[in-house]
């Protein structure tokens, strides 16, 4: 019981130990770690790990955030059942994420990639009895797995170009990859995958919906780590595809759109977590944009911003969770005036929001600075990117200020319950993260420079020395930063006009809600499939059969036409005319059996007649045993038919004339195909057949003069064994059908 | 011993009957408008008791083409025979009876 209460703390030991262990490896100074284990060489799938600066940065992030999140969860999850499940999946996620960033084999990376999706699914739907949670989890997993499958496709294409799935081989053979005609397809597939995971427009909508997950999950997966997996992948492949036109076009385009839209959507939300989710979307857009610009500077900016964002966004979510717990709501229009009852939370949140707004000296400022700096450097599209970035950042500032004001500083409030102070377990994480944010901002060079540097080396091997400092001097970038903060504050000051305006604007313009659309598409898709299933799987046996015979006829006639050749003529002998008469009888009887008005007994006797005539044919060619058996079985079948007759329905013609004609045509087409095939084969038999053997040895070795019988009981006795088994089993079937009373 | 003799005597008689009745059927089949004596189903009291006896009688009646044993009553005393040409009831019965009598010489 006690262990249950401190479960979070206990679990937090895991990342802590791992972090300690990893730090002791000192990748920054010791260089890359490469660990190789062959697993499935046939598939090119090996358990190879490749930990370079980029991986290390992510590992620090994952483990570091992990400690905070687990600790935070200890308090947050106290009252919920199913904690073990929660921690297991969180741990699974952490492991998968670690694997993802340290995988040296791209298929291995993919495996971990999918595992993060799955654990995310389980965590989003943690409150699985709520429909919203299930839907959001479904949505998240479906979206990310579209991406997962497409990166798999992409990886396999590249893998078959290179002949290996090792990232090192890929990077080494970058020019081979990019010169292949399939590389564009592969790249687009991979970008698609990265976009879904990192919630880029137009796949962004799953992320805000994922906020139904417990807050530790939102903090960990959906802000700090998992959503960065797409970014990580893009960074990993930067050395290969960075120089391509598609990369430099697609990534900035979608990144900047996401950046702006995310920030704007954040303004108009009322749920604290959804607000932060949209700001996350926005930040991810910024990251993608930066990676797409693919200059030394932009990569530097991206890495910096990645770190920044993880820290402050993680903290923000945790704070939102605390507020939710203590006050009972996350609606900023209900919250308010929390400054007094929750001073610590207020302090931390304000600090972090300021960082998000990009106000110096916090690290958020650094990140923003670098975005501008990078954007400016891009040759052609710079104005456009800058515009998008500025607009996005303005909204970001507005959001920060507005949220801080609405939650803490305004007077009026509609608390569902009286706020309580936060416990230390929950406040611990945000506090430390906020401190780190401050520390990194003030002393970037001392604290994080070496880590960032080695990460950049991984992406841009021919790098320039990176310098991070808070004060760059008075330049264009600083001007832009100030303008941004100014504009944002201006908008905030007129919040009574601006915010409602934005909300109205949002409702008017963004009438398409991607999420709703997603579900309506699914609904429509299912209904369409239902219709399709009803059409295809209609339950009419005869139409199934028609389909089969139609397909068979097409195939057979195709083959007949393809292989039309000379045929040798039939040989006639003195008895052929007799045969002809019998054939005529069979054909005549067959047609006689067709009319729909015929009685059941008539048809049965006609079938008996046909059977006897077929036996006559067998007799003509000396197949005595066969003829006897034919007659025996034929009589027996007729007896069975007569026996069952009173229990069977009468023959009624159900089909109309058109159906009859259609079926007749089909039957004729198929029958004639079979006839032609029979004729072709009969007139061109193989030269040497195995049956000569039977004639030769039937008597001498098998001691039997009746070759057919010898074949049945000796040469091919095992067939006969199967045959009598069929009979016995059939009799069992008849027994069960007739004797078992229905339950 | 006598039975065996009667049996042997019976065979030529029967063969003769057969030929005769085949002739009858031939005539009937080939007759243009079937202007022969009308057919009929006649009940014939039988005296044979043993199963073998009855069976033999029935079979023999059937195998001669003018007549056909249709049915046997439950008490095995009456045989219903379909005759192709039943001029009148009595002569038909008599004809069958003579066959039975010959059988009775060596069967029960």
């Amino acid at each position, binding site marked *: 019981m006690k262990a249950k209460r401190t479960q979070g703390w206990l679990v937090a030991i895991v990342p802590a130990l791992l972090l300690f262990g990893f730090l002791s490896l000192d990748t920054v100074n010791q260089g890359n770690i490469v660990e190789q284990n062959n697993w499935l060489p046939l598939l090119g799938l090996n358990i190879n790990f490749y930990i370079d600066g980029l991986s290390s940065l992510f590992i620090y992030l994952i483990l570091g955030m992990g400690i905070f999140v687990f600790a935070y969860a200890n308090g947050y999850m106290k009252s919920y059942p199913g904690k073990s499940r929660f921690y297991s999946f969180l741990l699974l996620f952490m492991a998968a994420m670690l694997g993802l960033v340290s995988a040296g084999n791209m298929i291995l990376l993919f495996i971990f990639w999918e595992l993060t999706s799955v654990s995310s699914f389980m965590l989003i739907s943690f409150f699985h009895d709520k429909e919203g949670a299930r839907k959001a989890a479904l949505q998240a997993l479906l979206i990310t797995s579209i991406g997962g499958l497409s990166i798999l496709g992409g990886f396999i294409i590249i893998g078959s170009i290179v002949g290996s799935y090792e990232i090192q081989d890929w990077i080494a053979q970058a020019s081979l990859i990019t010169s292949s005609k399939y590389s564009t397809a592969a790249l687009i597939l991979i970008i698609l995958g990265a976009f879904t995971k990192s919630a880029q427009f137009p796949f962004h909508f799953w992320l805000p919906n994922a906020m139904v997950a417990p807050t530790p999950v939102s903090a960990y997966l959906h802000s700090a780590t998992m959503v960065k997996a797409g970014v990580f992948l893009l960074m990993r492949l930067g050395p290969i595809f960075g120089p391509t036109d598609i990369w430099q076009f697609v990534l900035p385009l979608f990144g900047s759109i996401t950046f702006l839209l995310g920030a704007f959507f954040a303004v108009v939300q009322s749920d604290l977590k959804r607000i932060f989710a949209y700001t996350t979307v926005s930040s991810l857009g910024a990251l993608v944009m930066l990676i797409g610009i693919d200059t030394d500077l932009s990569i530097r900016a991206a890495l910096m911003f990645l770190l920044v964002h993880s820290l402050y966004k993680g903290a923000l979510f945790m704070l939102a969770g605390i507020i939710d717990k203590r006050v009972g709501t996350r609606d900023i229009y209900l919250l308010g005036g929390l400054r007094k009852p929750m001073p610590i939370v207020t302090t931390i949140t304000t600090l972090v929001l300021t960082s998000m707004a990009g106000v110096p000296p916090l690290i958020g400022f650094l990140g923003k600075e670098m975005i501008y700096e990078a954007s400016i450097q891009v040759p052609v599209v710079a104005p456009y990117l800058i515009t998008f970035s500025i607009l996005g950042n303005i909204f970001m500032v507005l959001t920060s200020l507005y949220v801080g004001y609405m939650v803490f500083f305004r007077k009026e409030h509609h608390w569902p319950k009286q706020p309580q102070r936060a416990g230390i377990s929950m406040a611990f994480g945000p506090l430390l993260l906020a401190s780190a944010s401050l520390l990194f901002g003030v002393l970037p060079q001392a604290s994080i420079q070496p880590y960032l540097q080695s990460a950049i080396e991984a992406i841009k091997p021919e790098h320039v020395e990176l310098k991070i400092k808070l004060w760059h001097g008075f330049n264009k970038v600083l001007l832009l930063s100030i303008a941004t903060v100014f504009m944002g504050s201006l908008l905030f000051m007129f919040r009574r006009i601006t915010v409602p305006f934005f909300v109205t604007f949002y409702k008017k313009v963004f009438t398409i809600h991607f999420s709703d659309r997603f579900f309506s598409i699914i609904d429509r898709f299912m209904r369409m499939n239902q219709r399709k299933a009803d059409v295809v799987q209609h339950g009419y046996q005869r139409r199934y059969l028609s389909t089969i015979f139609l397909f068979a006829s097409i195939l057979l006639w195709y083959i007949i036409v393809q292989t039309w050749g000379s045929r040798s003529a039939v040989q006639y002998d003195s008895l052929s005319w007799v045969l002809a008469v019998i054939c005529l009888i069979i054909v005549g009887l067959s047609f006689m059996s067709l009319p729909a008005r015929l009685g059941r007994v008539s048809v049965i006797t006609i079938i008996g007649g046909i059977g006897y005539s077929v036996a006559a044919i067998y007799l003509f060619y000396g197949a005595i045993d066969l003829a006897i058996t034919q007659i025996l079985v034929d009589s027996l079948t007729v007896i069975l038919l007569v026996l069952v007759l009173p229990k069977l329905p009468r023959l009624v013609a159900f089909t109309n004339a058109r159906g009859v004609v259609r079926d007749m045509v089909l039957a004729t087409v198929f029958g004639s195909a079979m006839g032609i095939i029979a004729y072709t084969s009969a007139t061109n038999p193989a030269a040497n057949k195995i049956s000569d053997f039977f004639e030769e040895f039937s008597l001498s070795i098998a001691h039997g003069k009746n070759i057919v019988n010898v074949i049945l009981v000796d040469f091919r006795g095992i067939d006969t064994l199967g045959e009598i088994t069929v009979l016995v089993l059939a009799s069992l079937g008849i027994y069960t059908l007739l004797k078992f009373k229905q339950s | 011993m006598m039975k065996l003799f009667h049996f042997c005597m019976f065979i030529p008689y029967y063969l003769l009957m057969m030929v005769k009745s085949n002739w009858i059927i031939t005539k009937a089949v080939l007759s243009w408008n079937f202007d022969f004596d009308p057919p009929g189903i006649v009940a014939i009291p039988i005296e044979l008791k043993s199963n073998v006896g009855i069976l033999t009688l029935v079979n023999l009646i*059937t*195998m001669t083409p003018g007549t056909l044993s249709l049915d046997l009553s439950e008490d095995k005393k009456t045989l219903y025979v379909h005759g192709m040409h039943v001029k009148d009831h009595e002569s038909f019965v008599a004809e069958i009876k003579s066959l039975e009598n010959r059988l009775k010489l060596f069967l029960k």
Partner: protein
Amino acid sequence: MEIVIIILLLLGSLLMLLGAIGLVRFPDIFMRMHAGTKAPSLGSMLMLIASALYFGTLSIFIEVLIIIAIIFITTPVGSHAIGTTAHRLKLKKWERMKIDDLERDENM
């Protein structure tokens, strides 16, 4: 010998043809039964004897005798079955058929 065989064969086959003609021509089921079950039996017997003569070995003779015996035993039972059925089914009888003791007895 050959002549005998040929005559037997021809006779047998003609009997069958006769039976077939009767089967087609006769007005009611009972008459057709006369034609359809017994003429061919006799015909096949003749033909069997012909083939026995043709092959001329003892074993064939025995075999043929067995077959003839079988035909002798089975045909009447078969036609009895058909006949009773037909009567029971109240199939239309030829209008010239007047005497029907079986029907009379059944209705009693």
